[in-house]
């Protein structure tokens, strides 16, 4: 572990001043459940840590009927919040499907969003090549163990996946990210925050150095009151998603009036399944339509040596989750 300084930031401006100023080696510290591991593995070598757990940990209703979630809200607090559970159940379930209670108690909303891939070659600083860690070095995952890797949106330079469960729900819910940077405050649609790897796999997001996440805003979304999150993994708990599906569905008179669908475990970013949504809107809420929508989303999937099963698995889980939402009588009525 490299020596570093540690400071607690009183508020957002102070944090940006401390970190954004910009000593290149500064990092914001949330719960530390990802960053500290990365420091121990010498993948992150910060010279300064700016603790931002003192930022807002409040969850407040917005005028429009949405929620404003402070960046320092702990994952557990978010999942347990009454309004989250009633209005956005998929988000509560996604969070609870992730990590362990101990980790969720520590993890913050911003830290969860910015956690890095779990690709084993990325973590193997000493012994493996990785373009995300060292641009231009090569990618040992493409021809190596890649069961956990991407089937959508990958590039020849990186096939990693974004590991978060929470983010899959945020992608489906059309969240907005509030930022403070050296240039002041700005907002960003959540869907535009994470990047596909392209030929810059070292950049997980579009954020600039020093950018601080201050809050995440959820819009009012009645459809989401009846929503689900299904995570498929290699053991019952405490494993990252092979495939996960966040979905909300509104059906009126047998016709899909609204649908929100996002996938986890399949791409470099939480994957909003826009093609499937488009294919479904206005269609009958039938298994055939769900199958066609899922197939449309997965048409361009390019599996690797170990993860071809994910295409079939994603297809099945999308259909099953939509089917359950439609059938169980829980499907939103659009009201």
């Amino acid at each position, binding site marked *: 572990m490299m020596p570093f300084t540690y400071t607690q930031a009183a508020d957002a401006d102070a944090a940006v001043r401390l970190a954004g100023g910009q000593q290149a080696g500064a990092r914001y510290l949330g719960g530390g459940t990802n960053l500290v591991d990365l420091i121990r593995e010498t993948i992150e070598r910060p010279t300064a840590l700016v603790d931002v757990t003192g930022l807002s940990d409040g969850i407040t209703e917005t005028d429009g009927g949405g929620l404003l979630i402070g960046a320092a809200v702990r994952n557990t607090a978010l999942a347990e919040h009454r309004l989250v559970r009633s209005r956005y159940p998929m988000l509560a379930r996604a969070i609870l499907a992730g990590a362990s209670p101990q980790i969720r108690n520590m993890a913050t909303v911003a830290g969860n969003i910015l956690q890095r891939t779990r690709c084993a070659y990325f973590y*193997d600083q000493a*012994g493996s090549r990785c373009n995300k860690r060292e641009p231009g070095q090569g990618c040992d995952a493409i021809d190596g*163990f890649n069961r956990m890797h991407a089937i959508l949106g990958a590039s020849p330079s990186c096939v990693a996946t974004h590991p978060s469960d929470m983010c899959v729900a945020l992608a489906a819910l059309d969240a907005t990210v509030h930022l403070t940077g050296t240039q002041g405050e700005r907002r960003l649609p959540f869907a535009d925050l994470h990047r596909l790897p392209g030929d810059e796999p070292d950049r997980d997001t579009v954020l600039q150095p020093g950018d601080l996440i201050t809050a995440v805003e959820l819009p009012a979304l009645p459809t989401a009151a009846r929503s689900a999150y299904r995570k*498929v993994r290699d*053991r*019952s*708990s405490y494993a990252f998603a092979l495939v996960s599906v966040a979905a909300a569905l509104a059906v009126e008179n047998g016709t899909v009036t609204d649908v929100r669908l996002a996938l986890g475990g399949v791409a470099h970013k939480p994957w909003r399944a826009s093609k499937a949504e488009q294919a479904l809107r206005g269609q009958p809420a039938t298994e055939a339509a769900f199958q066609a929508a899922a197939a449309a989303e997965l048409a361009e999937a390019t599996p690797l040596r170990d993860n071809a099963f994910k295409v079939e698995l994603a297809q099945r889980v999308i259909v099953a989750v939509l089917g359950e939402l439609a059938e169980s009588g829980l499907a939103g009525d659009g009201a």
Partner: protein
Amino acid sequence: MSIVDKGKEAAQGIAQSVMKKAVELAPGALLPGGRPDPLIRRQHGHIGKPVSRVDGPLKVRGAAPFAAEIALDGMVYAALAYSTIAKGRIVTLDTGAAEAAPGVVLVMTHRNAPRLNPPPRFLSGDKAAAGDDSPVMQDDRVRWNGEPIALVLAETQEQADHARSLIRVTYAEEPAATSLPTADGCEVGTFMGEPLRAVVGDADAAFAAAPHKVEAVYTTPGHNHNALEPHGATLVWRGDELFIHDATQAVAHTAWSMAQIFDLEEAQVHVSSPFVGGGFGAKGLWQHQILAAAAARLAGRPVRIALSREGVYRIVGGRSPTEQRVALGADADGRLTAIIHRGVTPKTRHSPMPEPFILPTQSAYAAKTFALEVQTCYLDMVANTFMRAPGEAVGTVALECAMDELAEQLGMDPVELRILNEPEKDPLSGRPFSSRNIVAAYRAGAQRFGWERRNPVPRSRREGDWLVGMGCATATYPYHRMPGGAARITLDAAGHARIDVAAHEMGMGTATTHTQVAADRLGLPLEAVTVRYGDSSLPGVILAGGSQQTASVGLSVMMAHQELVGELLKLAGNDSPLAGLGADEVECADAGLRKLDEPGRFESYASILARSGRSELVVEGSAPMPLETMHWSMHSHGAMFCEVRVNAITGETRVSRFLGSFDCGRILNPKTAASQFRGGIIMGLGLALMEETQFDGRNGRIMNRNLSDYHLPVHLDVPEIEVIWTDIPDPHAPMGARGIGEIGITGTGAAVANAIHNATGRRVREFPITLDKLL
């Protein structure tokens, strides 16, 4: 000469005479014509009671000191740097930045490491302990990906870790054997000096001619060791003596082996290991203790080395992968005519044994012909090693899945097929079984589990999205007892007995069960018995391995007890109610000796010692050679029953019920035994469904070297596990007990796979059975 005089003489000569007498007495106990251990008959003592762990309160309070928690004055912390190539030479090794880093006391590499003898490879001698006999940091060669290339000592662990990250190395790589196709030679493997090969009749011809037959290839992946406590040691040199606080399942072996490596007398090395946080075969002598001792000597400071989880993956071997072909031929009634079990497994040239997966097949079923063989191929990787039930754990996967496939083909119930093929004597050696009650275990287990509710037609039971099925398999593990057992009993004037034995408590309950056994043997309450263990200064060369520690310790204490009775009778003399009685006319009861058929003739230990003016009586006994296994085929068994639910959409498997019905001889403590059985079964669930070392065949590097990526069952993966047992004592084992530490993992993988087949109609022969294989 009076009895008293004789007693005195004997007391003086105890040390010399013990060995000889023990050997003379031994055959009586366990061998043909001998009298079984008298404790087998005793029904109302401490044996068989669910006594709670004597070390439980200490552990719950966090007060039990583990090896890497011992603090020594002036201690420094070690960190290891590991190679990143599988084979080649170190060309440059820049340690300048590391040496200059804050807090650094020493950077040791092959350039400045003291000259060391190669570690004695386990099984190469009575007390050889090393899992790997490669030279330890003695040259610029790299032998596997992950081999230590440098060790840093610093004032804090963080400083050591940081400095380690500053070491820069370049290599001249050489072509390495890191996958079976590139293996550096293959040959028939050997285990304990015997070739892993057995031929009876012409199995291939019998198989070809059989009216019913199944043939399939089963593969199991490599497995890494993941004991809760990673390996660690805290050690110090005092003059020319080395004191090691170790986490080991072999204190005496380690002391002797370290002495060989460092050119010392055995007595100059002291190994203490009172608590071990799980061993499973891995807690032997690996490079970390050797490197730490070498560095401590160079630096002149005590050293603590605590391997990280990655460190355990890099330098402590695991179970090798196997590729096993099983072919079973049966006649029209289902009687086996041919058992063929052949396959291949990789090994290093520096490890003690190849994964001996044919072991369970040697005594499982009666058949006219056998062809068994383990081919072993040499790879450049961390030395593979023992892991809970080496051989049986993965061998039963292949054999017992094949039996299920044969039952299906014959249209027979899998339990009945197994019972039909139950052998009358050991099918290969022809020896009689010492005690074999697998049929009773199957009947009891089947009834308790509700086996009759199983629908033999696969995929016939569905609950919502979940396909439900049941499967069974046979568990088996041999009785072992290794030479070298010895124990000392110190009986004091207050009637308190202390047992000293170089045994190990790795969480199994050793200290507890031996307190119970000794209390019964001596006729004492539990509170009056203390068992001291986990230190190389204590008597005996006792490995906590091969499920043999209980037998080894039990017999050693039994031999010491015979000495004790003889000595007490001599001390009692003519003024005692016991006057004139011989050792086989008395028993130990109520803290004293009494005549077997005349309870009134009794004298307490306290009284005997007081009258003879002794403050204590010390005797030692040694266990004789384990000849019992030359006369009998000695094996434990279990009937394993599993119910699974497989999600029809996602292929996820959930084990919903599990039952193990065991025949392991007498169960000494049902509480600790149940825990051992369940622990083994849980490990077997991991083997069945998720455990897999990701060994990258391109460069021989293990990629999933942490508990996030290497999957073990979590609580939610473990259903309620019921364990029952026959509790039929084995007349040829000490206390009638055959050992229970490893059997739980055997048979479990096949029971799960067979249940999955019953649920889904799918035969998955490539382990672990992950969901993608069931889509």
